[in-house]
């Protein structure tokens, strides 16, 4: 069912929703940017629809509401294991199709990757419903169309913000509140972006082989990449984590086991005893990430991991563009197959 709501009606509707849901969407954190006197757009809990920021892309993705940056799995208390309770109030995530497709990748990794589901992920995932933010324009660095993640249909509601009024499609009947009985009905079906400024050509998975590992392309990234890890932390699909066992009390009776984000561009990733590491050069880390996002994941799950949200481009302090890297790789493969 579609509705047309004025700003006032929207405010009232979302106010009602906050009773039942935590609303999570792109919001502005004043003066919380890395640089002084800059804001940061992040995914956060909001109450007023006017708090949503739509004109800029969020620096981070909504993934931290499904896999917190730090998540305590359990405490050891004198031989007992206690799992801390989490906030079980359901969440409505306001996100664009790219991010919703991204969360589908997270679902695959945590719930469909082998026989065992990740219970810690699942308990949070079950709380989440989507309000898809219609995205017809995109941003400068987006390449969702190339990745096929410009569309998404499995949402509970979709919304188009149009100045002083908004169009809403509600699929999930539990989101139809009294507020909506008073507003104008309309036929609203969200539209999707058809073309991005950035286009990428993904190399065919069967053409990618180990001979590419030694290609000078990766040396370029060894020179350019500083392994700061922003591309990973901002990525909607990066889902690697590590474990931390924290001694809370000196007598060892109270400990905490938590998992924490870890990433291929961040210190310590896959380091082993004796200081051995698989990918010491930053270019090798870049190669690993690239292969995972647009090759290895596909081999295992039948679709690419990268959804083309372009955040890695937006946040890289060295102006490394992942879409450019993919295209370079495609060119190299084309040239090599012609030879």
């Amino acid at each position, binding site marked *: 069912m579609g509705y047309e709501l004025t700003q006032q009606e929207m405010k009232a509707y979302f106010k009602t929703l906050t009773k039942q849901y935590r609303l999570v969407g792109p919001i502005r954190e004043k003066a*919380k940017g890395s640089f*002084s*006197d800059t804001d940061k757009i992040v995914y956060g809990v909001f109450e007023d629809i006017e708090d949503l920021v739509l004109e800029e892309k969020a620096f981070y993705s909504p993934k931290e509401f499904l896999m917190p940056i730090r998540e305590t799995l359990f405490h050891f208390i004198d031989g007992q294991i206690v799992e801390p309770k989490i906030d079980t109030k359901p969440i409505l995530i306001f996100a664009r199709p790219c991010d919703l497709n991204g969360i589908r990748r997270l679902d695959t990794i945590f719930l469909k990757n082998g026989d065992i589901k990740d219970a810690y992920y699942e308990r949070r995932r079950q709380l989440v419903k989507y309000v898809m933010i219609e995205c017809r324009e995109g941003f400068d660095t987006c390449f969702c169309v190339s990745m096929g993640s410009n569309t998404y249909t499995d949402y509970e509601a979709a919304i188009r913000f149009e100045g002083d009024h908004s169009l809403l499609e509600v699929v999930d009947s539990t989101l139809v509140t009294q507020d909506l009985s008073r507003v104008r009905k309309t036929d609203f079906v969200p539209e999707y972006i058809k073309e991005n400024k950035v286009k990428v050509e993904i190399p065919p998975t069967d053409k990618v082989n180990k001979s590419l590992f030694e290609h000078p392309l990766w040396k370029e990234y060894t020179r350019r990449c500083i392994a*700061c890890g*922003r591309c990973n932390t901002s990525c909607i699909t990066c889902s690697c984590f590590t474990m*931390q066992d*924290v001694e809370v009390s000196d007598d060892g009776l109270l400990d905490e086991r938590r998992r924490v*984000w870890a990433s291929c561009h961040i210190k310590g990733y896959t380091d082993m005893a004796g200081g051995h590491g698989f990918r010491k050069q930053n270019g090798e880390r870049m190669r690993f990430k690239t292969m995972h996002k647009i090759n290895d994941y596909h081999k295992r799950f039948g679709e690419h991991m990268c959804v083309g949200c372009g955040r890695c481009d937006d946040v890289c302090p060295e102006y490394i563009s992942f879409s450019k890297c993919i295209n370079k790789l495609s060119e190299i493969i084309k040239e090599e197959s012609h030879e």
Partner: protein
Amino acid sequence: MSIDRKLVTKNAYRITKIRNKTALRVRVPGGHLEAKYFQIIQEVAEKYGDGTVHLTTRQGFECPGIDFDQIPQINKMIRPLIESLGLDVDYGDGGYPAAGTRNISACIGNRVCPYANDDTTRIANSLEKAVYPHDFHFKIAVTGCPNDCIKAHMQDFGIICLTEPQYDSKRCITCEACVDNCKKKVTGALSVKNFNIERDIEKCIGCGECILKCPAGAWTRSEEKYYRMVIMGRTGKKNPRLAMPFIKWATEEEITQIIKNTYGFVERYIDTSLPKEHIGYIVDRMGYQVFKKEVLEGITLNPKALVAEHIQWHGYHYKTDMQFNHEGL
């Protein structure tokens, strides 16, 4: 030719080595100027000067080769430049009302530089309004971070913008990017304890590097901005030396008031037998404790502010410190 040398100097025209020729010094607080004013400077230089403009060491402009008798016309022309300082008093066509307190210089600050912790141009402009026109010889500079690109350490008052890093352990991935960087580039104020980052507040200089390095947003900036003020740095023919920290984690209001109070201090103790006496020498003569007491008078410092108990300035004395040998023989 008859000119009142002292009045002319106060009017920001200098005595030059060429008889009857002067040079106009244009103030540019913070070294940042709307480009439209270039036209005026160009016109002064081409119409009345020798057609050249010097970029001064303090980020102003100097137009040399001007005849003294052209001063009234030039003062009329530069009125918009003086008005651009936004002073409370309208000085009309009289030209600059003082020249002793030198142009307040500043690095480019956070309008451009990612490291800067504040808008140094704005601070320079605001300080200009607080201290100008004043004829005591004060050198003030504002730098956006402890890199100190403007050389705040060479000033009577060097203001270094700081932020107090705020740590949110819930966002920390213990990647140690902040710790490694602080150790290599700064003071090693950060360490890891139980997967959390600990900031040694004694060692932290408020540069904000940890915030810049954090990939997860665990470090953010404090709402309040802070400043370290270093004082009494100088060049000169007696005892060149770097300025030393006087107060840290001070607010903008506090540092402004300290500078304003220092004018009173100088008023009371300046050696009037000299044509001018730099403030550093007055502090040397009166002692740091007197200076400290008098310039902090009436200021209620914020609880975070720390004031140096003693200051031992270093540098060297031309008179005594040099041991030179003829190595060419």
